[in-house]
């Protein structure tokens, strides 16, 4: 049982992120915290598992009691004996390199004997048949497989309470369904689930109650039936994604256009199935979505198209002329999923003009204004917020004025409001001298933006 009383939370001198939160979660219940990005829903999760105070330096008033123990007086390992956590980005979840050892790592640390570990492992395999994920290298799992492993690890640890922070945000539809089934099984086993999420359709059959968080306060508490009755438009207004599964309404790609791919071939290391891509052509001025399950090689395809994949072989033509890897690199730009990888300089203005030749400063400033970055032009890019960083990366792509623009999962983890902003931004990049490619599993996003999709 989790009992929160008058919880307020702040980081340093900035305004409070959470104000006077009071609630109770009973044993075996499944509770959803939902709301816009930045509403404070993840902070509630992180104050329950102790990370907010012990890692992010948050200051807490009020009390959080788990099984009548005050979290403030517990060490992180003592909290972890009561609560397991599943993070937003499964990449950050693992300590071991080997998957089986990772599953057992917690059990080793609480001092179970080898027999007990085997028992727990077998018990887990009975509910979650994930034999194919055992004894693998964590770096070679897809995002979906990693998240499945995280949830399995939360079960094997045997804690009664599991907190999950936007578990679906890096996953495609198929994996979200798997996660949903796993959560249902956990609930059947009597686990208490506390979830923060703004993509809510997959949770509708699981939750008992939902709390709408706005600006750090509980705006309203809903029972499941009340929550189901909220119309979709209202949800979008609140920054939430749809509560039913969205269907992709974008048509499949048609064969015409003057960016022609005769052939792309890429051999994955040690796997039999290769990436093969043949006889497809793209039209200038269009936006193409690239979809497919996690781990099919969407990102690899992007790298092959851009020309930064050494091991691939390809035959690609633009307006009848064959393009080498080097030619393509020159006319391509990429906005990566983690934009921290692509911010290099010490100020926003230097960042966007880096590698750009013969552009008037006015042009650059116009782009900054359009993206709301002009005021920040002398700031260090790394000191900006996540959304601002992403806009800087997009601005730099726009300044380079490439003919091929690539976006790798631009909306992962975004609420409805931020997703629509990015969608509008990319829409503005569109002109008849450019082709835009977007790798994404976000169907609502692609529906709002893409002209065609390619299904890998």
């Amino acid at each position, binding site marked *: 049982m989790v009992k929160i009383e008058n919880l307020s939370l702040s980081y340093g001198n900035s305004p409070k992120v959470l104000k006077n939160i009071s609630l109770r979660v009973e044993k075996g219940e499944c509770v959803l915290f939902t709301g816009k990005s930045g509403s404070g829903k993840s902070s509630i999760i992180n104050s329950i*598992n102790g*990370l907010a105070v*012990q*890692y992010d330096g948050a200051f807490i008033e009020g009390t959080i009691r788990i099984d009548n123990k005050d979290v403030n007086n517990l*060490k*992180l*390992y003592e909290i*972890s*004996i009561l609560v*397991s*956590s599943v993070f937003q980005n499964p*990449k*950050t*979840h*693992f*300590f*071991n*390199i*080997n998957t*089986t*050892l990772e599953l*057992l*790592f*917690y*059990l*080793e*640390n*609480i*001092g*179970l*004997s*080898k027999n007990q*570990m085997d028992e727990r492992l077998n018990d887990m395999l009975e509910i979650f048949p994930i034999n194919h994920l055992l*004894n*693998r*290298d964590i*770096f070679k799992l897809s995002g979906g497989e990693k998240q499945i492993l995280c949830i399995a690890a939360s079960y094997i*640890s045997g804690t009664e309470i599991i907190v999950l922070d936007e578990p679906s945000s890096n996953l495609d539809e198929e994996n979200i369904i798997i996660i949903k089934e796993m959560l249902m099984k956990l609930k059947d086993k009597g686990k208490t689930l506390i979830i923060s999420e703004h993509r809510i359709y997959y949770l509708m059959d699981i939750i008992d109650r939902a709390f709408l968080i706005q600006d750090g306060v509980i705006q309203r508490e809903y029972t499941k039936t009340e929550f189901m009755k909220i119309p979709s438009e209202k949800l979008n207004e609140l920054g939430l994604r749809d509560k039913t599964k969205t269907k992709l309404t974008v048509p499949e790609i048609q064969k015409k256009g003057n960016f022609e791919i005769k052939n792309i071939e890429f051999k994955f290391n040690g796997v039999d199935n290769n990436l093969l891509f043949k006889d497809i052509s793209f039209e200038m001025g269009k936006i193409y979505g690239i979809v497919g399950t996690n781990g099919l090689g969407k990102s690899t395809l992007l*790298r092959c198209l*851009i020309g*930064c994949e050494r091991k691939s072989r390809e035959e690609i033509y633009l307006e009848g002329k064959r393009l080498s890897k080097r030619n393509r*690199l*020159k006319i*391509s*730009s*990429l906005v*990566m999923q*983690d934009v*921290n*990888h*692509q*911010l*290099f*300089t*010490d100020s926003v203005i230097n960042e966007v003009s*880096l*590698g750009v030749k013969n552009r008037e400063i006015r042009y650059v400033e116009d782009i900054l204004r359009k993206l709301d970055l002009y005021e920040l032009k002398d700031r260090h890019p*790394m000191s900006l917020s996540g959304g601002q960083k992403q806009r800087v990366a997009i601005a*730099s792509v726009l300044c*380079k004025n490439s003919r091929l623009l690539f976006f790798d999962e631009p909306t992962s983890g975004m609420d409805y409001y931020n997703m629509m902003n990015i969608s509008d931004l990319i829409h503005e990049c569109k002109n008849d001298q450019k082709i835009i490619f977007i790798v994404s599993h976000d169907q609502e996003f692609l529906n709002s933006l893409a002209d065609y999709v390619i299904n890998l």
Partner: protein
Amino acid sequence: MSTFSDNPYNPNPISKIGIVILLGFTVFHQINIYFEWAIIFVISFLFYKNGLKNDALKNIAFFAAFSCLLPDIVIIRNMNPFIMMFFMLFIVCRMIYLPFSAGKFFIKTSDVGSIISSMDKIKVPQNISIPIAVMFRFFPSFREESRNIKRAMRIRGITFKNPISYIEYVIVPLLVISSNISDDIAKAAETKCIENPVKKTRYLSVKIKTVDFAYMLLMLVMILGGILW
């Protein structure tokens, strides 16, 4: 990288660290070239047997390049200072090559779990073994992330033509990402109760195998032989 624990040709992390330290002596005391070659071949053989064929070949090729192409230190001493500086850099690489190579073998073929278990075995206290394990876990993540950064730089058209700004551009994102990685690893470890003071158990116990004796003994013979020859 996978668990190599069940591979009979993969020595215990302790032996591997021991060898790195032993080979450290060769930096201060040059040993006979034939014995050096023997050491290189032993390491390459182990690379090969642990499924790292490329590394086995690279190991030999680099050493061949260093030992055959570099002029003798006496000739370098009489060179123009700038050329001398250039060659000295390679001389230093050559000097640390043996321990470097053994270190690379250690890093590429050991997993965090077996390192912690083997440190437990020789009773290293937790406040030393945990930071070492975290440090160790840092490398593979770091490699993955720096690959992404390099890729981003190529697409942005940042090349090595201007080395100073190139280095500046690499370092900024690398520092930020390194600090994120270490935070994430520490969080992952702490939420898995790594600091729990109870007596820990290990699923895989790290055994001392034949290969450990063979590896240690061969290296010891080679180093002593190389010094005494």
